[in-house]
């Protein structure tokens, strides 16, 4: 088998959208490769669900262009109806048809095939999500996780050119969510189906996606690999969205800034610039031995969270700055313990204020 150059499956150009006078999407540009999984993340109301509905054809496009496989499916005044786009979708409430059996639900999108073939294909798809023996059951007889699997099977059965998932795990409890996102990702990989996942959970996005697009107020403010969003955020918003941070303030002097935790370099920012320094909790390394660049902190409280612990700290100086550190294991430092802290620069981000 020869290795093909990956082709562009979905292309969105200059897409903007208004509800009344409110702009919900602003000049969105996205390209999605065949087989790629993209996560759209952002706080609620950032426009991610609207973008998904526009791609699906469930909302009327106002400005911009959407191409699927190189063919224009939506441009102003020229839109292909949702039912003619061959785009599958998994909904937040699963939207299983309550009056149809699981088999009929999955077969619903195979309308063009002869009945016998429809049945075998639907059954095969149900088998892939492990629910073949329940084919005759009604949706309400299933648990939430099973319903989610059927919804996925139904959306994938017609072999869509693109799969959209709108917060597909948000109705499930945490444990189930973790298992299902793994299963779902596996299925999408197996079927090599280009997919867009909408979620407000950054961890879910980082787990599932090849790339993540972070939306805020209708704009994509950063797009890239999960690692690049976590370790190279380009804004305070992105930094805070993907994890908790300790925030320190300072002013630049000769491309460096002095803080209660030591001196940090910010070569790209100008002299005298006020900055905020964001430090991820796991970047704070605690030890009992002092080193050249360490500072003394006092333990306030230890919260054991299983595999790791959160430690509330106070810097031992006049300002008495509060900090949170994250360390592996379950250390048992009583409050008042004096420790040494140093920062790992990989988790430190400096932005102009």
């Amino acid at each position, binding site marked *: 088998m020869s290795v093909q150059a990956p082709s562009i499956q979905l292309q969105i150009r200059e897409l903007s959208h*208004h*509800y*009344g*006078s409110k702009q919900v999407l602003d000049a969105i540009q996205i390209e999605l490769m065949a087989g790629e999984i993209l996560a759209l993340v952002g706080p609620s109301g950032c426009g991610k669900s609207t973008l998904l*509905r526009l791609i*699906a*054809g*469930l909302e*009327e496009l*106002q400005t911009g262009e959407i191409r699927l496989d190189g063919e224009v499916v939506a441009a102003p005044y020229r839109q292909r*109806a*949702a*039912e*003619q*786009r*061959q*785009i*599958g*979708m998994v*909904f*937040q*409430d699963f*939207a*299983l*048809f*309550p*009056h149809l059996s699981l088999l009929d639900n999955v077969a*619903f*999108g195979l*309308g*063009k095939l002869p009945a016998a073939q429809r049945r075998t294909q639907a059954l095969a798809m149900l088998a892939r999500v492990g629910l073949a023996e329940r084919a005759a059951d009604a949706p309400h007889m299933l648990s939430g996780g099973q319903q989610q699997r059927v919804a996925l099977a*139904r*959306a994938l059965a*017609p072999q*869509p050119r693109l799969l*959209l998932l709108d917060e597909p795990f948000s109705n499930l409890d945490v444990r189930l969510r973790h298992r299902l996102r793994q299963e779902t990702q596996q299925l999408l990989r197996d079927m090599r189906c280009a997919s867009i996942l909408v979620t407000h959970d950054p961890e879910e996005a980082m787990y599932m996606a090849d790339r993540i697009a972070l939306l805020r107020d209708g704009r994509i403010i950063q797009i890239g690999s999960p690692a690049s969003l976590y370790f190279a955020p380009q804004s305070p918003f992105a930094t805070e969205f993907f994890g908790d941070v300790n925030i320190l303030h300072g002013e630049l002097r000769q491309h460096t800034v002095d803080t209660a935790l030591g001196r940090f370099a910010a070569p790209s920012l100008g002299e005298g610039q006020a900055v905020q320094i964001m430090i991820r909790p796991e970047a704070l390394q605690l030890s009992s031995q002092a080193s050249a660049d360490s500072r003394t902190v006092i333990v306030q409280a230890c919260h054991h969270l299983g595999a790791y612990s959160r430690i509330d700290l106070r810097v031992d100086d006049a300002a008495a700055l509060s900090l949170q550190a994250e360390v592996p294991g379950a250390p048992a430092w009583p409050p008042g313990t004096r420790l040494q802290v140093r920062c790992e620069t990989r988790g430190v981000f400096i932005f102009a204020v």
Partner: protein
Amino acid sequence: MTTESLALARTPHPWGVLRLRQYFSARHLGVGWQVASLALVLAVLVPLQSLLGHAMRGSGELWPHLLSYVLPQALQDSALLLLGVGVLVIALGSSLAWLVSAYDFVGRRELSWALLLPLAIPSYIIAFAYLDLWHPVGILQSSLRTLLGFDSPRDFKLPDIRSMWGCILLLGLVLYPYVYLPVRAVFSMQAGNLIEAARTLQAGPQRIFFGLALPLARPAIAVGTSLALMEALNDLGASEFLGVRTLTVSIYSTWLNRSNLPGAAQIALLMLCIVLALISIERWARRHQRYTLATRRMQPLARRRLTGWRGVLALTYCSLPITLGFVMPAGYLVGETYKRLRFSGLESSLLSELLNTLQLATATTLLAALLAFLLSFAQRMARTPLNRQILRCASLGYAIPGTVLAIGLLGPLAQFDAWINRLFELSGHAPIGLLLSGSSVALIYAYLVRFLAIANGSLEAGFSQLPTSLDDAARTLGSSPTRLAWRIHLPLCRPALLSAMLLVFVDSMKELPATLLLRPMNFETLATHLYGEAARGTYESGAIAALLIVLAGLLPIIALSRLAERRDSHGSSP
């Protein structure tokens, strides 16, 4: 936020270039349906427009006559009737609803649905029954006399039922369920949390009822009362039998006895103003409804047990309206029917009348179901402000009293027939006579205009319970709108569709005022037959027809109570 307000928020403002385009685009259905639904609205609005035309054309000399002889009496009687019926249905409806929702006593379960039974009795039938029941030598007064120890009507006589107060009492007895039903729903479901909170704050029963429950139920009371008052305004039979000269009666006699269409149209317009006033009062009274609904979580109210004489008192109070409003008139009809069948057998004309009634009701029901489904579906597919208005307009017909509607239809129907005949003449054929005005088509048209709103309401409620994600799912799975309607909406809306059909069927079966004015020559339905018998004073012979109407009217009540029971058992299962 409710789904409706969400949809509202998503609907773009109707002005502005981009917005204007959306205003008129029925995205996934094309213009075809839009034209069709506009035509439907026209069909509802045509009678109103024609009414206006006739009233304006009316010669000036009519007004002095109307003003000095007809209107003062009619206005006064209508106003008194509405006031009396309004007070009675609010008092009866809300007190009964409170009693069965906040308290538990022997027989409560059975009574709480039996209190709906009077709905099965149309106003003209209760009046018809009581004319005989209340007669000085009738069963009611004779037994009262025996009970009290009098022996002749000269010694003891109840006031004549043929009076304003009699009319108020009888209408109130059959119309209070319009208030009882929605208010009970508020008390037993939405108000639960709050009433329990009030109890923990040491509020007594009186304070809870007047200070909390009643204000909470105000929107429901407003809806129910306005429906009841529209029925009261629409009533023709009861007022006429009991000698109350309301606006409806005046319209009817102005047209039928004096053949004075402009005069009738003028009174009809006046009546329409009253209807509009009623609607606006209702809207005003429930302006905060969305707010109250949105903030409550459903919590059924825990009932307090009434024992001893308190329980007996509650039982008696609840039985009274059922006895007076259903058991006595229905029992009377059964008795008369039995006598009639025993002594003179079944009238041959009755069968054809029954057939006429069933045919009309069936045709109306099927058409109303079809139209309502299409309208609601279209509204769901393209939630534009225009469609919202269309649905609202198409529902306007319910508020138009039957006589007003009939007067408004007479003109357009005759006009249409004239056109058709002219067309036939021009093409060299013999004129075909009265195609619409002289046929049952006119009746079905009138029924549809009046009852489409009921079907619409039921289907809209049915549709609103289906999450829109079902539509989106079907569409992303390649379904055309037609397949979506057929495979998803129709099966899932079946309960709503069936209940809509049941309600329209029963309402068409018992419709009297419009039927009287629009029916073809020598065409009788059960209702007009009954009216004719009562007008001639031969009450007994109308009993069979009346009983048939009441029996049909029982169907939706039985369905309703079965539905409620099923919901109860669903709710109590773990």
